[in-house]
């Protein structure tokens, strides 16, 4: 359990985290979603006491992190890839961290095996790829078999197999009753990994709740209708709450009415339907609509997610 109350961090002029309050519950995977620079990493660093909050406070399992007698069994954290001395081997890095808590070398071997680092454990970390660095960071986070895991962008630099591994690992750990708090700017990853979401933008929480709720709140569910009498149906449905658009002849996209409502309205008017499909909005759309005003670094072209695909030859050449 992580509880933040009015947590604020100011770096000089810049307000990185602006009085946020949230709870991360045990037994679930909670995603911390936001664009780059939104304050995710700063928040996570404050949770484990690396950054001192400008105001507000945060507790882990009931106490400020620094007041726990054995921090590594309370919280395992992966805060940045390679928070590791480059001149030391992976095994020695883990041994040194384990030694602070009296954690055995057997456990060090165990986490090396769990993270698939056996073949490189004796190599110096300086030569590690981003993916191996991430695995080592996750190994370090697991050392104390912690009740709470805080993972900042854990899938960064991992290959598809690694991404899947992290996804299954965090679900498994949450299934054991642990608290898992996971940040990412990859919405698609969050959609399949997280149960709950906290969406942050420009240091403020924009939305929080079950993934499903966020998606519903951030997107308008629509219904696709195919009918030979599309025009007639469109006239029938359009009203103050309902909007109907048409992308091709005979096909309608209806916002503001559910599939059963449309079906019944069609039946009552004797309109033939060939297709009636509720279209769920994606987390991508929800995220974009939620964070539209809060994105820190706007790209000059197409941040709505559709434009960059094959717009100009110049773009494609990159």
């Amino acid at each position, binding site marked *: 359990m992580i509880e933040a109350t009015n947590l604020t961090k100011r770096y000089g002029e810049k307000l990185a985290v602006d009085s946020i309050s949230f709870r991360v519950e045990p037994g679930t995977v909670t995603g911390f979603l936001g664009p780059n620079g939104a304050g995710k990493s700063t928040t996570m*660093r404050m949770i484990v*006491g*690396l950054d001192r909050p400008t105001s507000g406070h945060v507790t882990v399992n009931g106490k400020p992190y620094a007041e726990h007698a*054995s*921090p590594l069994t309370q919280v395992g954290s992966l805060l940045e890839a390679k928070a590791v001395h480059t001149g030391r081997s992976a095994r*020695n890095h883990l041994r040194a961290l384990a030694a602070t808590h009296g954690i055995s070398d057997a456990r060090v071997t165990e986490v090396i095996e769990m993270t698939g680092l056996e073949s490189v454990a004796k190599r110096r970390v300086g030569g590690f790829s981003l993916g191996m660095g991430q695995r080592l960071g996750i190994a370090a986070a697991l050392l104390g078999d912690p009740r709470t895991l805080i993972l900042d962008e854990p899938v960064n630099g991992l290959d598809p197999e690694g991404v899947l591994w992290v996804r299954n690992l965090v679900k498994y750990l949450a299934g*054991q009753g642990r608290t898992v708090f996971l940040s990412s700017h990859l919405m698609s990853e969050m959609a399949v990994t997280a149960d709950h979401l906290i969406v942050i933008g420009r240091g403020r929480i924009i939305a929080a709740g079950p993934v499903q709720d966020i998606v519903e709140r951030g997107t308008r569910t629509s219904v696709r209708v195919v009918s030979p009498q599309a025009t007639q149906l469109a006239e029938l449905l359009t009203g103050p709450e309902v909007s109907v658009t048409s992308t091709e002849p005979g096909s309608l996209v209806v916002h503001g009415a559910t599939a059963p409502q449309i079906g019944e309205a069609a039946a009552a008017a004797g309109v033939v339907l060939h297709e009636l499909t509720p279209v769920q909005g994606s987390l991508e759309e929800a995220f974009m609509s939620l964070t539209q005003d809060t994105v820190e670094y706007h790209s000059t072209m197409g941040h709505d997610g559709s434009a960059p695909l094959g717009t100009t030859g110049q773009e494609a050449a990159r």
Partner: protein
Amino acid sequence: MTATTTDAPTAGADVRVTFPRLVRSEWIKLWSLRSTVWTLAITAVVIVGFVLLITWGMLDANEMSGSSDDVNALDAFGAIRYLGPTAVAVLGALTITGEYTTGMIRSSFAAAPRRLPVLWAKGLVLALVVFVVTALAVAVAASLQALIFGGQGASVDLGDPQVVRALVGNALYVTMIGVLAFGLGVLMRHSAAAITTTLGILLVLQILFSLIPWKPLQDLTPYLPNVAGSQMTLTDAMIEQQAGFTGSVVLSAWEGFGVLLAYLVVVLAAGAWLTKRRDA
């Protein structure tokens, strides 16, 4: 992993942070870096090598000039206070700045979020290792000196407590400079800055002070960290002799030790205060 509760799962009851464990962790950290072995090896080789070289040089000069006086074998250890601390200063600074530049410090402070015990454990391990290595090097140098040049009267008298104090003082001085570099590293968090500052204090300040003809600077010279600390490497007789020709204040061995210790306390206290306050 079979645990299914929210209680700390496989961790035994005794899994927690203690100071001896932090010391053990720092011990592992220190010895798992190549820079440690290199800097300590260089220090030992420099100490043994120069003591022997200077002894040989002194005997040779004596012979050339036809002097019948015995050489003072302890003088050969005088090089240690100039050459010994250099590599150790690098080691001392890197011990902490290496963690800041690589990001390791975040792992260290996440494991031990009270932070200051990490610093003390680091400083302690550094000081112990440097002291043991330099003391051994001095002992080896003294033994080889006696073995090779003893027949020509050039060997230190280990029965003389003053000589023993001066020899141990060499190891202590080198160790304290290593800790000074460590303290500056804690303050600056930057390898080049900490190493340069330490070497500047060791090599430049005294020369600078002597070049500027301003009395207060000359009065301060004996209290410079390296000047004060070096008194530990001398016997009382040598200090008396020194007082004869400098004419300014000359600190005793223990006063010098005290002055250098005071610098360490100030630098480490400032470093500790900042470490506690700063974001890692």
